């Protein structure tokens, strides 16, 4: 990010314009509906931060049981074993499958937690009156938001694995795999964080420059 980019940029609001968040067409400020696609126009999405916080909070709440309760219920020859996410990772490491353990760990622990942190950070810094404003970091924030939005869906790997295993391994007495409570919790958690990321209005990032300038 060069200094050339970091010079104060004119936002659409400053220019008296409002862009359609659906199709991107620019209108005069005061236009209520998009002349092209008919969506209600907002210069900034109302209540965006509030929604972000709500989804984020919900996602964090359900992430707790997702880690405490078993993800997989493996019944083999009448012998049931339960494995949580972290327990499964440790088990995999013990078996020597470091690679798989790493994938599971990244997908199930690192990414969700990272998302919580990233979304929380973004939501904090774009808050009006926030002191954590550094003009030079606005592009970084934008980049962070894009990464979070992109990577969020990959957390579902774990859930897919559980769903596929549960569907395939139903050999009655010999071996049966069932999803645990954690599977539901985890998928909810991923969904909530994705919603949180979606609720975030990236245009808020640039408002910080405005306040900085003022």
């Amino acid at each position, binding site marked *: 990010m060069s200094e050339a980019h970091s010079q104060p940029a004119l936002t659409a609001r400053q220019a008296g314009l409002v862009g359609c968040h659906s199709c991107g067409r620019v209108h005069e400020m005061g236009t209520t509906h998009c002349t092209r696609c008919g969506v209600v126009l907002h210069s900034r999405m109302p209540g965006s931060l509030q929604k972000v916080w*709500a989804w984020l909070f919900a996602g964090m709440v359900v992430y707790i049981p997702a880690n405490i309760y078993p993800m997989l219920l493996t019944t083999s020859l*009448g012998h049931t074993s339960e494995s949580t996410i972290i327990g499964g990772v440790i088990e995999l490491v013990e078996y020597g499958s470091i690679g798989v353990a790493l994938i599971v760990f990244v997908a199930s622990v690192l990414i969700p937690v990272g998302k919580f942190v990233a979304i929380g950070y973004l939501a904090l810094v774009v808050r009006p009156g926030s002191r954590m404003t550094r003009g030079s970091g606005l592009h970084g924030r934008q980049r962070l938001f894009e990464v979070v939005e992109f990577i969020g869906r990959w957390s579902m790997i774990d859930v897919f694995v559980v769903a596929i295993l549960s569907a395939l391994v139903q050999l009655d007495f010999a071996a049966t795999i069932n999803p645990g409570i954690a599977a539901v919790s985890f998928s909810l958690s991923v969904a909530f964080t994705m919603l949180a990321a979606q609720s975030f209005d990236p245009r808020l990032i640039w408002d910080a420059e405005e306040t900085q300038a003022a």
Partner: protein
Amino acid sequence: MSTQTPAEMQIDAPKRSFWRNLSVIWLVPVVAIVVSLGIAWQSFAARGVIVQITFENAAGVTPGETSIRFRDVVIGAVEDVSFSPDLTEVVVTAAIDRDVADTLPEDARFWVVQPEVSARGITGLSTVLSGVYIEASFKPEPGAGARSFTGSTSGPLVRDGQQGTRITMRTREANRVSEGAPILFRGIEVGHIEEPRLILSGESVVFDAFIEAPHDRRLTTATRFWDTSGFSVSFGASGLSLNVGNLAALVTGGIAFDTVFSGGEPLNPGYVFDLFPDEASARQSLFRSVGANAVEMSIEFDGSVNGLEVGAAVQYRGLRVGEVRAIGAVLAEDADSPQVRLLTTVALDPQAIGLPAEAGEDRLLEFLEDAVAQGLRARLATSSLFSAALVIELAELSADEVAPAEIARRENGMAILPSIPSDLPDFTATAEGVLERINSLPVEELMNQAIRVMASIELVVSSEGTRAAPDAALALIEDIRGLVGGEDAQALPGELRSGLAELRGVIAELRLREAMDRLLEVVESVDTVAANTATASAEFPALVEDLRALVDRASGVEVEELAAAATRVLNSADSLIGSDGMRDLPPALSSALTEVQQVLATLREGDAVENVNRTLASARSAADSVAQAMESLPALSQRLDRLVGQADALIASYGARSDFNTEAMQVMREFRDTARAVTQLARAIERNPNSLLIGR
């Protein structure tokens, strides 16, 4: 002028309330929290109550995996396995479902279920795959809520709540019953034995047993238990019998029971059953316990009571009515010399005799007094054919047979039942006698005699004289045939017959003397040669038949007589055949025949009619010769008469059949048969001396 301007209006955007500002989205985290808390609560509630069970060892118990079951339903799981502080026990910490844990009583039983293979089958097979589990057994008591238990090594044989009756049994030795052994009722398993244990004094073993409902209804005081483990072999009047019980009972031991008579009373708590070694003794024990109102009385015996034991039966008309309680000796101060008398104390059950159950001593004595007056006496009897054991029999004899007696009283007031001496057959002595008699049979002698007879016969037959006889006889017969075939002879018969009649007259005279008697027979035989050859030849087999009949009869007669007779016969035969006379007989006969031949030759030569007188003279001389020949058998005794007659028949046979060899062979064969019959007899006797005793 000052223009009053209105004060600057402070226009604020209406303060939007915090709540109106609040987005509906916030419901989502609220719901998430509620759901999460709900799940947390649920798992907390489901976590159960922690209890601790101490085991000696915790084979196969794994924390987090081993479940705890009650009636095969999982009620909890093992959380932790650790040691007691002094390392002597294993403490299993388990979480039990809350609602179940609240009803756990102090005496709840926990044990580890493992696969087990025993004689009674395979149990706990499911644990092979699923791993062991801990089974609980208790009677739920709401609000009991015990938290600490002592585990047992094996499950109780009776689950709590199982219907049935627990009884106690007593036995002398427990080496044939083991814990878990089945209790059988007519072969069906209706209960188990629990662990046998010694009573404090160490004299016997008691053990509890559980009879399942509804079979426990059969238990009364009349129920008898006996050991069915293993197999039993018994030998008695009905033969050899082998009883093999249930296979499981064979291995683990087993107990069977039956209610042996009706009218038992319901069990009282603390009633202890005796375990009998076998069914027979269990059934016989019938009167031992009902002898509660048995009346004791004494019986004095004069002779030995060897074989009578305490517990032996007292029988009345074959029915067991009591038992011997004691046997002892008393010194009876008779008139002059002290005398030892054997005093037997018996207990008689009035009920067994047929008196009403409530009949007491008086009623029984009354009955016995009457019976004694009628001739009832006690006497000793053998209990069975093969045993020396004795029982006391209350025999009913007719009053005339026995000296009158009555029930006396001893000094202590005990009634004394009159007894009579019994004629006990001494079985062993009898058996010995039988064996002795069999032993003393002169079988060897008999065999030797037979061998000697055979040797003698061989000697006779192989002697040259005997061999010469057929030739001479054949020549004679040839001559006779020639004579008879001649024309003169054809005309002769009438004359000859009259001549013979005369000869007969002459011979009748001769018959006055002994030698002439024999001569007559010979001549008569010669007569019958012409007249009835077939009959003559048939006579010989008759002889053999006679001999055979003799043998048959011999085998039928009593042993000693037979032996003696056989010996006698053989002796006679031996002496007969071995006698010089017999040996001399063939040559003598030969010469006699030669004479006859000469006569016949003369007859043929001369004119028959003219030469009748000469013939008769010749015949007379022939007869003389024959007589001479006969007289040359001086050693023949009177008994030989018949034999000579039969020898005549033999000669006749010689005349009747041209082929002497056949006859001789037949004779030999018959002799051989005879000898064989004798041998067979001897062998039969040797093999089966019984047949002599029992007839066949």
